[in-house]
Each structure stands twice: as structure tokens, then as C-alpha cells.
């Protein structure tokens, strides 16, 4: 993994929570996408991607999240994003339309609540 970002995976019951800490650009988007896939299993009903500690995200990262959402839908799984409105990436998530396409919560707790509600 490049030194730009690291992926922290936690398992909350049936839901993997993947936090992206650091910066995502074209240089590491593919690698990050693979790490996220590795955290998923067929048993995961939903995946939470936490962007609270993401310092930078551009279209490379936005593309990866759109693609991830599409892959999950094909597999009858849900994607939940955690975006702190005060975080630097909040605007790009809004402008890109990602917040419309995918369910977005302000905190990890709220996202987990949503995931459980969907059971």
C-alpha cells in the first residue's frame, strides 16, 4: 500500500466497516479498491465505507466508490458511506452526485444503525 492512505477494516457483526485514512488519488485508487474488496465476503449484507479520516478525494476516488456501489447492488449488497459534513471531502461527494447515488450518513454509528435496520 502506498504511503498516501491506509485502510482500516473492522467487523461489526455482519457488516464490515472500511475506513480510508489519508488521501485517495489516481496513484492509489486501484489498490484501495482491491483492499476494500478483500474486506467483503458473500455473507456481508452491507458494507460501510467511512470517509471521516479521508483528507483528499478526487474523481479517481469518486469513480472507485461509484463502481463499488454498482458492484454491491449487483450482488444484492448495500453500500453505506460515512461523510462528516465538516470534512474536506464532503463537498466533492455532494458535487459529484455520489451522495445521491449512495446512502450517506454523517457518523459511523448512524451508518451502522441503517445497516442493521436493513436486515
Amino acid at each position, binding site marked *: 500500500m502506498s*504511503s*498516501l*492512505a*491506509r485502510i*482500516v477494516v473492522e467487523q461489526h457483526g455482519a457488516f464490515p466497516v472500511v475506513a480510508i*485514512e*489519508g*488521501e485517495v*488519488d*489516481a*496513484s492509489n485508487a486501484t489498490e484501495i479498491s482491491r483492499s476494500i474488496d478483500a474486506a467483503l465476503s458473500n455473507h456481508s449484507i452491507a458494507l460501510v465505507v467511512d470517509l471521516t479520516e479521508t*483528507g*483528499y478525494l*478526487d*474523481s*479517481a476516488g*469518486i*469513480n472507485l466508490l*461509484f463502481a463499488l456501489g454498482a458492484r454491491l447492488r449487483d450482488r444484492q449488497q448495500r453500500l453505506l458511506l460515512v461523510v462528516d459534513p465538516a470534512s*474536506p471531502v464532503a*463537498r*466533492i461527494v455532494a*458535487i*459529484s452526485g455520489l451522495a445521491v447515488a449512495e446512502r450517506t450518513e454523517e457518523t459511523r454509528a448512524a451508518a451502522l444503525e441503517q445497516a442493521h435496520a436493513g436486515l
Partner: protein
Amino acid sequence: MSTKEILTTSGAVPRDEALASLQQLTDAALAWLPQDELLSELLVRVTEILRADTAAILLLDDEQPLLRARAAKGIEEEVEQGVTIPLGKGFAGRIAAERRAIVIDDVDHADILNPILRDKGIRSLVGVPLLIEGRVLGVLHVGSLRPRRFSAEETDLLQLAADRAALTIDNAALYEQRRVAESLQRQLLPNMQRIPGVELAARYLPASRDTLGGDWFDAFALPGGRVALAVGDVVGHGVGAAASMAQLRAALRAYATDGHRPSEVVARLNRLMWQLGPRSMTTLSYAVLDLEAERVEHVCAGHPPPLLLEPGGEGRYLDVKPNVPLATVPGSWYESTVHHVPTGATLVLYTDGLVERRGEVIDEGLERLRVTAAAVDGGVDPLCACLASKLVARTRADDVAMIALRVPPPPKEIDGSWPAEHATLAEIRHLLRRWLRGRGASEEEAYDITVACQEACANAVEHAYGPGAHSFSLQGRFEDGRVSLTVRDGGRWRAPRGQHRGRGLMLMRRLMDDVDVEHGDDGTVVVLERTLAGAEARA
């Protein structure tokens, strides 16, 4: 003729000839042989001089009280089988322990531990200690397959050979030690890689060429445009200190790259040292610099404080929070402090060898460092060179390590060229953000403009496949409150493929006031413009 006379005559060597042959043992040509070859050559000559059948050199082990067969002639099995003889026991063991020559006329009736000597049919032996400045290095002995009585004169000759051999062995050992020390030290100190956005220089001056030191430094980039700097000092010298230093340096990088806060990185290092056991006390100065925030977070583990040199300033030491050194208190926690490091300032981390002199309090050394450093003009490398020449004595008891980092101010205008690789995006991003902040852009504006510009740069990287298109340029200007960025490449613009590339273009248009893309046969030019809100308010 008595038996004794026959025996003596059979082994006699003209003394002058013997001495001349011994002189050759220190031939300049011999000195360059690898140690094993050198010892073999020594044994050949010794057996010739004494007309003996076998010869062996056993050297004292560095750690245990035993002799180890190192070279042999006529009894090569000694070395092949790795014969060891306890100090004080048997023939060779007694020679080393008692530091005197021993002559055995009849092996059958003597205390011989080494079965190889008996199995070979050796009948008589003479052995002498290898001594250097009163230290025992080992034992040199020769044997005869015929019964023979080695005379006092022959024993003296052998001792003479042993003295010359000892000198040569000691020199070779010293040379070998120096060679290993230098090569190990080179391996252990980092190659100073270029870190985007900062100027770096470092020096390492070992206490002597022969010993390994425990001082080290390191510098590496962390996510988010941050730079980590470390200088440490493992107490003691030699292989142990150097090994400990190497472990700490690697562990520090690993903990820092894993995203731990500076105080946590140092607490983990401390825990690791207690786990690794036998510990040497270690002092550490660890700093993480956030270039955009112009801030450094520092952890001091019993180490002298970093020196901060502001442009045109007198220099001052950071008011750090002292914590205990590593490997002194198990489970200790470490507190960090945060300091402002303005653009243009230089931060110097160093080990105590730079400020300590015998017979003076450390305050005097610190003051000398501050005054000397503040007087240097012109970059981090001249600074390190000056500190090394003015503050470090030729003969010193301690190692000195230092590292200096300067944060150059962002340029008024951006005008640069980068290789068409994704890896350059992060570097450009941090340069751009600092530049925009310097022009008065708000955090949000800086973020938006950076994302838009990165889209154009990423495009330049991605379609830079044609010949001569392996780099792209970026120009940034700021006039009348308006930011203008121009990204140029020599590649062919790739029409948006699928919604992904289209998304990049869409983002650019949403984030900027004006986006202009022109593509021709010799490349593509993207011009991005946006007026800063602060500028409008000022107008």
C-alpha cells in the same frame, strides 16, 4: 653422540636464515592477503623454519573462554572439525592460560585433550602463546612425527614467529572489523531520498572509524503532506548498539506509516525495546511536520531539543516536553508538544555529540550551536557542513548525527514540469494547496481548485503515451484576485470514455469558473480559472 644431540641436530636451522625468513612474515605483500590465506602462509613458513611436520593456530573466542582452531598445516582436520579447547585445559589451553611456552617431548605421556594430535601420530610438540600488548590472542604450536626435543632456542624462534603472527592477526582483525563496521554503518544509515516540498540535509560522524555507533537519523514522507524526522542515540558502541539502532529505525518507520500519532509511535518503540531484551537506554527526538498547517508535533525522549531557525532570526530551541528515554521505564507513555514552524524556517535535530564537550555544561554547547547555526546563510547542506566543521572535534568520544530540514516558501507563481506518472499527483497537490493558501484562498477554495487541477493533471498522465509525451507542465498565476492554472501535455486528448472520465471533466466545470480545453496534434492545454471570494470582497 647422545640421543639429545641427535634429536637437536635433526631439527636445527641456521639462526640467521631462520630470522630472515621470519622477517618475511610481515611482508607488505602478506598484509593484503585475506586472513585465512595469511594464516596458512604463516604456518607454511613456520614449519619450514623449524622443519616441523604439523602446525596449528588456535584463536581465543571473543565471548567464551575457549580456543578455536583457526588454521592448520598437516593437521587440517582441526579446522575442518572446528576443534575447540577450553582455556586452561590440555596442551594449548594451558599455553593460553599460563601465557608461556610449553614443550612436550613425548606425547604418549602428556595431557593432550585433542585426539587429532594423537591420531596423526605426533610424537613431540612445542607451543607458544600469541600475545599482543599483553593480551592473549591464541596459541601457535608445531609438532613432529618423529620423537624430537625442541630446544630453548627453537622455542624462542617459535615465540618470535608467534609475536609477528600476533601483530599480523591483530592488524587483519582490526582491518576486517573496520571494513565490516563501515559497510554496516553505510547500510544502516538511510539514503536521503528527496521529499517533495522540503529541503533536507544530514550528517553522520562516527566517533572512530573502527567502531559502530548507536546514533542514527531518518526522514520520510507521511500521508497528508507530512514529513517525519527522527534522530536517536543508542547508548554504547559496537555491533549491539548498531543492531539496536537498526531495529528502532525500522520499527519507527513502521509505526509511523501505520498512522500512529507521534506520542504513540514512541510509546510503542519503548514497549518493543522491552520485548526485544537486552536493552540499551536510547534517547530519541521525533518530529512530524505538517507543511500545510506550518506545524510540528514533537516527542522528546530524554534528548536535546530541536533548534528552530527562522529567516533572519537568532534561532531558538523548541520548548519541548521532556519524557524518559526509551528502555528505561516499561510501559511509559510519552507526551508530545506542538510548535509553529513558519514557512522558510529550518528545523535542526541532532545528537548530544554535537553540543557536549568534556568539562563544560550542556547549556554552553547549546548556545554555541544556536549562535553558529544562526550565522549560516544559504540552505541546509551548507548549514550541516558548517556545524560539522566548526562544532565537531577531529578526535571525539561520541558519534554525532544531525539532520536539518527547511520548508521553502511556495513560489509566487507555479511553473514546473513533472514526469507523467500518477505518483507525482500528491506532490503537486501539496504544492498547489500551500500556494493557494499563500494567495489568500479559503480552505474550501483551495480544496476545490486543487481537485479540479488534479483532474487535468491526471488526464495528462493518463494520455501521455505518445513519443515525447512523458512529462506535463503546470503553470499557476494569480492576478486581480483570479487564479489561473494551465496544464500542458504532449499527448493526445482522449475523448471521455464511459462516465468515469466524463466525471473528471464534469467536476472541473463545477469547481471552477472557467474551463478551457484545447487539443491539437502536439498536445493538450487545459486552462482553469476561478476568482477567489476573498478577492471579490476586497475589491
